[in-house]
């Protein structure tokens, strides 16, 4: 047998790499040179500006003086001092400074709530994520002026979660379920009983369903459950809250939603809309796949309408038209109205994405479920949706990314999004009038990190689910 030989010189090392990757043929050589030229011109154009960055100054004019002083007449330089002065507004808007720990905590716990969903069945990753959350909260909560008691409580809670993750990870889902109420309470403050009593509505719904499902079948009992829950929210909720609050008042300082701004606003809108759009999107997709003509037509009509108009018109609907459509004198928070419209918007897009997943399932899956005697909803929940959602994960995540980016559009209805709203406020300040690159770069970089992270996570998820089963 001949031993293997090393390839000839032309097949080895840097030379080969350069030849193959940069200079194979005249066309590639031109491309390479063009690429180098592009990089060169970008660097020469922007580098001095970056190098002359000023980190501490009181105002833009001071920044400019410093740049002139250090780099000579006519030199330009970035004025990061502005970010240094106003970063908290880009992150939190006008949220009371002594309560910054509340959004920080809500955001940290968001990951704790998502952990059991993101890493279902992976104890190790689950604990790692929970540990990371605990660590981050530990170092951020105190500077964000959280009371010591809160920090201790949170650490204890997270330690409990990590312990639970080892034994019964599924139990953590209960925290996921109550998280929305907790988050609401942390962000907006007010009496704790408001979210608690509101959540009880879901308990009523679930209880009624479970109690009736044996006798009346799933559809009827679901409808009854929803009806009972509605009754609860419309008639019982408010008085009960007041009564309990009278007996055992426990409240955080109230924060108005007009104090929300910056990334706090973007994330609040984004996360809420994502959470609620998923179930609505699933229902719409199922409706669209249904063979009941009227249901199907309504779903198609809704989806096509929402997808056919720009988000910005829907936002204007939230700010201008919703008032016409609701009973006279109803008035609720503009952020809430925006969230509702953004949720519907995302739901329509998700519905299309999920429909793609449903269509990709072979008919045999439906038939096998039927043949085993599973009814429609069980078949959907146990067999069809888990598979369809899995297929559509990449598309779902890119919808989420799009949605998160689109939260910047709320600036057009007067809300303080990080990109236009806060920047505008900052620039209305006499000190910083005339600054424009720095806020855009700062905000853009944060968006990039978040969105890029999400897309990488979806790739990871895709890979993981693939190796799992095949």
């Amino acid at each position, binding site marked *: 047998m001949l031993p293997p030989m090393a390839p000839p010189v032309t097949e080895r090392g840097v030379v080969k790499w350069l030849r193959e*990757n940069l200079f194979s043929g005249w066309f590639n050589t031109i*491309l*390479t040179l063009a690429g180098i030229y592009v990089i060169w011109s970008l660097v020469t154009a922007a580098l001095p500006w970056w190098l002359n960055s000023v980190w501490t100054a009181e105002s833009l004019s001071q920044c400019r003086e410093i740049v002139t002083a250090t780099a000579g007449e006519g030199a330009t330089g970035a004025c990061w001092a502005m970010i240094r002065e106003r970063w908290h507004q880009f992150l939190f808007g006008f949220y009371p400074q002594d309560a910054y720990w509340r959004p920080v905590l809500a955001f940290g716990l968001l990951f704790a709530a998502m952990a059991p969903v993101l890493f279902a069945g992976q104890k190790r990753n689950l604990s790692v994520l929970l540990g990371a959350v605990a660590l981050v909260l530990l170092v951020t909560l105190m500077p964000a002026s959280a009371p010591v008691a809160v920090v201790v409580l949170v650490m204890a809670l997270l330690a409990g979660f990590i312990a639970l993750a080892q034994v019964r990870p599924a139990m953590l889902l209960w925290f996921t379920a109550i998280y929305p109420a907790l988050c609401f309470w942390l962000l907006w403050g007010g009496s704790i009983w408001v979210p608690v009593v509101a959540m009880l509505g879901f308990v009523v719904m679930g209880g009624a369903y479970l109690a009736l499902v044996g006798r009346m079948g799933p559809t009827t009992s679901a409808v009854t459950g929803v009806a009972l829950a509605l009754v609860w929210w419309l008639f019982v909720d408010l008085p009960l809250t007041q009564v309990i609050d009278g007996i055992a008042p426990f409240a955080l300082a109230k924060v108005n939603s007009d104090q929300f701004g910056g990334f706090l606003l973007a994330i609040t809108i984004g996360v809420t809309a994502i959470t609620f759009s998923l179930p609505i999107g699933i229902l719409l997709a199922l409706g669209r796949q249904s063979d009941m003509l009227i249901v199907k037509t309504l779903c198609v009509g809704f989806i096509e309408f929402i997808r056919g108009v720009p988000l910005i018109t829907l936002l204007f609907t939230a700010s201008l038209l919703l008032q016409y459509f609701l009973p006279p004198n109803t008035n609720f928070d503009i952020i809430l109205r925006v969230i509702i419209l953004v949720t519907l918007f995302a739901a329509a897009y998700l519905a299309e994405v999920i429909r793609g997943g449903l269509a990709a399932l072979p008919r045999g899956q439906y038939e096998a479920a039927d043949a085993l005697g599973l009814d429609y909803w069980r078949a959907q929940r146990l067999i069809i949706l888990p598979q369809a959602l899995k297929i559509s994960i990449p598309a779902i995540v890119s919808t989420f990314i799009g949605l998160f980016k*689109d939260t910047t559009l709320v600036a057009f209805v007067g809300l303080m999004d990080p990109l236009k709203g806060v920047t505008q406020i900052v620039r209305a300040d006499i000190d910083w009038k005339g600054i424009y690159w720095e806020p855009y770069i700062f905000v853009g970089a944060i968006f990039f990190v978040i969105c890029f992270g999400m897309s990488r996570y979806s790739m990871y998820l895709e890979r993981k689910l693939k190796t799992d089963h095949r």
Partner: protein
Amino acid sequence: MAVASDVPKESFRLSMLIYDTRYRSITIQIFVLLLFALFVSWLISNTISNLAIRGKEFNFGFLWSRAGYDIGQALIPYSNDSSHLTALFVGLVNTLVVALLGCVLATILGVIIGVLRLSKNWLVGRLMTVYVEMFRNVPLLLWILLSYVILSETTPQPRDFRVTDEMAAAGEAPAASMMLFDTVAVTNRGTNIPSPLFDVSLGSVDLGFMSVNLTILAYILVIAGSVWINRRILAAARARQEATGDRPVTWWKSLLVLFGPVIALSVGLGLHLEIPELKGFNFAGGILVAHSFTALLIALTLYTAAFIAEIVRAGIMAINRGQSEAAFALGLRPGRTMNLIILPQALRVIIPPLISQFLNLTKNTSLGIAVSYLDLRGTLGGITLNQTGRELECMLLMMLIYLTISLIISALMNLYNSSVQIKAR
């Protein structure tokens, strides 16, 4: 064998509405329809009472009243004496122009980037990846604002172009100069490009409802004629190829046919360019392309191109490597392989998501408001709404128009989709 007895006719029971497959779906549908009707009537009655409370009425009469404001970029005749309806159309045309140009440019750029991303050239591949990730993960609004700022901050003022007497005497050059043989001036308020003028005017005929400019008509006719002749030439070439196997060289004929007549017509009509010239505050003559338009177009193009690049890349990668190998093995050259084998297949994969990108781009033109580009959203949904206070009417009308545009685009998409499905068992 057992003989079937007649099934006794079942009497109708109420529970059958829920448990009988025949009635069940009808029951549900009627229930849903009822809920829906209730919901809609609730909305309508709310709207009516709200309108009453505010002492407003719902009608579109205001569209015919005088608009009273000016629009910087009006591609159809418009002045502040025109009606709000005309303003609406000006906005609509502005929307469509950006959308159309954006789609074309984004497609070209996207295809180039998508192909370059697949390139074996390491450097270029990385650069394109950076480009794509950067644009996909940062909000469009930022790109729009940024390109506007770049355009208006890095370009010279019109007066930088001025040559004063002293400067002329001293032989100094002005701070800025025009580009492309002194025909295009980029200032910080816009790009001034030359406009075509004709010595011979063909006039126009009035058809009652609209007047037709005969010069434009002549161009359209000549171009259509050239295209038709070119197609005949290509058809003839194909016929010849089918008959003899030899494909005659046609590119110079095509060039001649496509450009000859147009040039001839232009010479005949005495076409010349009106070069923008600095007069008073601004460049006069020629056409001014405002930066709000350019910035919006650039941002939309770059942003959408990143998405299109991904679509193109996925489309090409979806074609099995075996396809090109088989073509090579048959002796087809790489160029032919691309044209005859890869592209026809890749296009089927590429076109549907591409069209939905077009749809997105069209809807995203509404962000032009960020740079005060007066598109549909800026005229009807902005100034008109503001000056008349008819938010209900304006918003509904605007949504309807956007919806119509979208539905037309997606109808085309479906038509295309069903026509190119690859046949399978």
